[in-house]
């Protein structure tokens, strides 16, 4: 029913509607673009062109794979810096309700968000009419076991291993993303008017004695706040730094792990683990990448061979496909 005045014509600059007047020459421009004749590279994927690519992939991937695999397998030796992780399984840090249950403004030291946390933190937003700092389910469920490592020497007197608390969180998190609320020197003062998360034993300003590792910028806290991708995960707990080049970081011997057990996992059928690992340039031990590279490289190489055969066989039979490499 709609009347249409052939609007398209008007917009296209089509035939002029002015009656009587003859159309001016609408000769199209002879440009390469308008004539669809822009110079172009016209590659064609043929067996001939792809063959070398397959071989190249094979030749590159297999050595890389082997390299990675070897590196990954060498990680076991306790040399260099040793990283101490705790692991949890069946813990859904990536549950949507959990992931969003935080207030990044509060953690960034915003004073209004400190006293009035985001609604996303429900039901861990307020307790006894006081805003929780840090609010939310993530913070509330922070891992609070304490792990201590002892070397049991010959004299059966356990020597505590020095565990470094700092350097376990991303530098940017520690220095930019997480900030304590502004205020006086006293951290407790700055958190005034807030209450501790329900499950915490002590308030956030008493996480550590080191003022540079206390409050929101406590690294254990920051590490915990980076939600894991999968229900089985590990998080960096401590660093064991190498003292000198002569001795291994953790010399062979008997060790004992002292766990202050606070964190309940049986309820959700979870497990706790402690992992000690060295790190190579490519991270922790993970054979997957190495194996995958070797496999893909081999397959690619094999495909190259198969293609070569097919190419050779069919080149003779087909008259048109002159494939040259």
């Amino acid at each position, binding site marked *: 029913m709609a009347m249409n005045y052939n609007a398209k014509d008007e917009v296209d600059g089509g035939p002029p509607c002015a009656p009587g007047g003859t159309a001016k020459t609408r000769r*199209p421009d002879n440009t390469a673009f308008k004539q669809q004749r822009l110079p172009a590279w016209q590659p064609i994927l043929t067996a001939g062109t792809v063959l070398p690519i397959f071989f190249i992939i094979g030749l590159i991937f297999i050595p890389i794979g082997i390299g*990675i695999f070897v590196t990954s397998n060498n990680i076991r030796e306790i040399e260099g810096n040793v990283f101490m992780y705790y692991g949890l399984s069946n813990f859904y840090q*990536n549950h*949507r309700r959990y992931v969003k249950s935080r207030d990044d403004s509060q953690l*960034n030291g915003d004073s209004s968000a400190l006293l009035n946390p985001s609604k996303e933190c429900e039901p861990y937003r307020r307790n006894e009419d006081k805003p929780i700092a840090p609010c939310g389910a993530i913070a509330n469920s922070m891992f609070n076991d304490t792990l201590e490592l002892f070397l049991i020497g010959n004299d059966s007197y356990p020597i505590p291993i020095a565990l470094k608390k700092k350097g376990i969180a991303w530098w940017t998190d520690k220095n930019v993303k997480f900030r304590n609320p502004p205020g006086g020197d006293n951290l407790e003062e700055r958190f005034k008017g807030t209450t501790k998360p329900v499950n915490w034993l002590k308030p956030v300003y008493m996480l550590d004695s080191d003022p540079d590792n206390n409050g929101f910028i406590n690294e254990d806290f920051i590490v915990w706040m980076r939600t894991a991708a999968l229900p089985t995960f590990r998080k960096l707990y401590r660093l064991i730094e190498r003292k000198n080049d002569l001795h291994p970081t953790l010399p062979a011997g008997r060790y004992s792990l002292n766990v202050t057990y606070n964190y309940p996992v049986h309820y959700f059928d979870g497990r706790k683990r402690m992992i000690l690992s060295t790190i190579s340039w490519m991270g922790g031990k*993970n054979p997957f990448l190495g194996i995958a590279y070797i496999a893909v490289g081999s397959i*690619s190489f094999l495909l190259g061979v198969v293609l070569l055969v097919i190419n050779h066989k069919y080149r003779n039979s087909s008259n048109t496909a002159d494939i040259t490499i």
Partner: protein
Amino acid sequence: MDCSLVRTLVHRYCAGEENWVDSRTIYVGHREPPPGAEAYIPQRYPDNRIVSSKYTFWNFIPKNLFEQFRRVANFYFLIIFLVQLIIDTPTSPVTSGLPLFFVITVTAIKQGYEDWLRHKADNAMNQCPVHFIQHGKLVRKQSRKLRVGDIVMVKEDETFPCDLIFLSSNRGDGTCHVTTASLDGESSHKTHYAVQDTKGFHTEEDIGGLHATIECEQPQPDLYKFVGRINVYSDLNDPVVRPLGSENLLLRGATLKNTEKIFGVAIYTGMETKMALNYQSKSQKRSAVEKSMNAFLIVYLCILISKALINTVLKYVWQSEPFRDEPWYNRKTESERQRNLFLKAFTDFLAFMVLFNYIIPVSMYVTVEMQKFLGSYFITWDEDMFDEETGEGPLVNTSDLNEELGQVEYIFTDKTGTLTENNMEFKECCIEGHVYVPHVICNGQVLPESSGIDMIDSSPSVNGREREELFFRALCLCHTVQVKDDDSVDGPRKSPDGGRSCVYISSSPDEVALVEGVQRLGFTYLRLKDNYMEILNRENHVERFELLEILSFDSVRRRMSVIVKSATGEIYLFCKGADSSIFPRVIEGKVDQIRARVERNAVEGLRTLCVAYKRLIQEEYEGICKLLQAAKVALQDREKKLAEAYEQIEKDLTLLGATAVEDRLQEKAADTIEALQKAGIKVWVLTGDKMETAAATCYACKLFRRNTQLLELTTKRIEEQSLHDVLFELSKTVLRHSGSLTRDNLSGLSADMQDYGLIIDGAALSLIMKPREDGSSGNYRELFLEICRSCSAVLCCRMAPLQKAQIVKLIKFSKEHPITLAIGDGANDVSMILEAHVGIGVIGKEGRQAARNSDYAIPKFKHLKKMLLVHGHFYYIRISELVQYFFYKNVCFIFPQFLYQFFCGFSQQTLYDTAYLTLYNISFTSLPILLYSLMEQHVGIDVLKRDPTLYRDVAKNALLRWRVFIYWTLLGLFDALVFFFGAYFVFENTTVTSNGQIFGNWTFGTLVFTVMVFTVTLKLALDTHYWTWINHFVIWGSLLFYVVFSLLWGGVIWPFLNYQRMYYVFIQMLSSGPAWLAIVLLVTVSLLPDVLKKVLCRQLWPTATERVQSPGYQSTCPSAAWYSSHSQQVTLAAWKEKVSTEPPPTLGSSHHHCSSIPSHSCPRSRVGMLV
């Protein structure tokens, strides 16, 4: 949308039973009729405001929004958006709201702009000044204030402000000339006639004193039909009643020419003018690609719903253990806990829907629209399709069907003006068996050639000579040609005889050719003056004939007549028309000889007309006059009554002779048809012409070859046998070969294969289409279709316009639902152009109606080749890749999300950040595919043109079959699995940084996303065969943009965000070696199967296109340049010209020969022939 029908219904409904009017009464100059006449019933008419705009300032937003959300896709996205707003969903409403907002805004701006242009045009039109007569004075007013009944004065070169009844002009004879170029494109001048009784009113005072009423029909859109009646009251006597026809009606939009000024009375104003009624939108055609796209959409909708359902069910199964539903570390709020279980489940279902809704992307619709809109410019820009002679290029009236051009299986082409030039040339005439060829005239004398063996009597008797002259006079008088006295006429047609420069103008080129031809034979039509036709005879004497009646031409009667009175007082009726319509009405004359000649000419592809006459005595003429007058005055069924009257008048004629006019084939018509047939397209010729002429044209344009066995299904044959028998016999003949036909047919037209051509005429067709008595209507049709399918070419002759559409419809709705294309140039082709999937108008001589109603218009038939084989092919592969790729990339996008649900407790946690979710389709992956779909050329333009068989590779929607669709979907699934599990195994329970620090879920998602963006973009890069700098720019630019964006997005604490989850995530990821290794590995693995599939298919089962693409082929073809530049193309074109040694197709080449050497033929000036 039949607007007029609705309007009539509304009128009827509103007006009530008793006083609804199918006609209107207009009081000229708003004067009431004298008492005693009919009661004065003022009727309300719209003012003369033209409103073509859809919106006003106030209703734009609501109306536009309403219209936009009527589209199913938009509505779907709106629902998703609302769901996101209302319930707690994993993604913010921004993710779907922003794209939707973008789409809606862009569309609204575009439509608003178009509407603004329309408003502007309307205003300009509504405000332009018009001269009216008020109380005998000339007044200037704005056009929009014009009312029905006003008397208007129009000056030369002005356009008529509304539909007017022509009252008088400054010319004494009460005529005026008009061009309707802006209405139907005909630039020729048409003569309109003032009402007899008012044509003497020359001054404002006179006209102001006119007292008359007009009764006429309510407005209807047909430009060429009008019936009405005028009652002129003079001296308070009984009114004089005069009929009004379309010759008295001046249409809005037409322009006054060659006439100083005219007076007219407004009868239809504003939106009721015929022009406005004709500007209604056409019904929208949808392309096959769009249909498959919708089918795919439904599949994806099902996938989406099932995904959401599966996840919802699994969620509740998984949550059945309370420690999973609500572990101590992740408590629900009180309100969440108390919510009804079913409500919760439903909300979860909706939330999953929202999470996965990107699988049906908004952006696909935008991209498809943009691709079509922008892509259509390449057609209008194409230099090869520009016609130098006429200065016309191709027109794109709709961009919705671009890809359909690559899918055509049947072409229905008109003959005259489409295959042929419609540039008529008088070839010969045959008078009682003597043949006269106008080219071979010396000194204006036709010399009878005595040596012709075919002549009956070498020196025509006195009687014969009289007949001869009568014949020429008949040709001089029986026409509606106008003579242009001044030379400044659009497209003048100079007569070839240089001495007397008369320019003849007519809507029918045949008539011009005849009048010009007879001029060369010694009789010149000079002019029509005061109803006297003047002709100059051989002795250079002016003869004057009074023009009494014109029985105008129509396509049903296929003839026209004039009744003239000679100076000596003899009254003649001259009739001219198609042989089939003349011979049955002839009682005298050398019918057999002329018939033989006519048939012979028809075989040569000439257009023949027969001329007959009848001498009338005064009484007979008076009878005729009465008959005609009665029919003309009739308000109801005037057409029918006129036809009956004509039928009675045009009988008992004496046959004089026949004429033959040549209509030359358009250049490269044969070449084009051959190429189209090689492309696997069946070409049907539908023409109103007679069988022999049409068949000859078909031979000339290589539709029929020498070895084609012709099957005839004509009235003649059906008269002999029953339709049933004929059909079965034909089908038997055809199907005998069908065994060998099936496979060979695809591999080109092999010479040894018997191919069939079918000729069917209109009458036989209507028999086939007619449902049988026993009710089994489809039976003959099926059989007929079966025969047609086995024929390589079909010629349908003697077709009425509606029958053309019928044929198209028959094929369109046959079993295979082939894609049909109709091409024609005349008004009689409009019905089939509208009916076919794709309608193409040839911007021809017969006006622009076809071009206006078409989807695409081209200047010449030969341009169809490039249109289909190059543009159509390109658009098809482009859009099919576009559609498939869009679904593919969104499977890649969404399937990892789906998988992630299994690892996050079905909590609808998103894998990617909101920004990535929003921008994936809008910016990271949108431009490469858009530009691909505009620029891609899988093979060169020249290769496509040279090798039409490549068209078969994309026939029948080959690239959007379910198999291909499933392949793409599976590829998407595979890639999604690779992305997700690749990242999963890399991240699983380990660290991937060299400082021992741990990545979280956002890094995981970002890794998957990065691999995905790269894979999806590189997949497109692999599919790109034509890398211009634009493609390079866009593909690498998109990847770069992604990286830069991610760096920025993660590099700053954005104050407007309430979360900082992406802070430094991307940068940290890039600092990890394994992430890089994983990206390289996963991208490679994702692309490998596709590369392998491509290479293997190309090697083992290459398609014709792939063969052509291979480097070996390229090197053998000089034209296929890897880097082509314009200069190379020019030399190439020249090279090709040389190669094609094929002579231009000609019809009746002997005549050509004759005419090209005039000196030879001078002594043998007349070739008499008896066949």
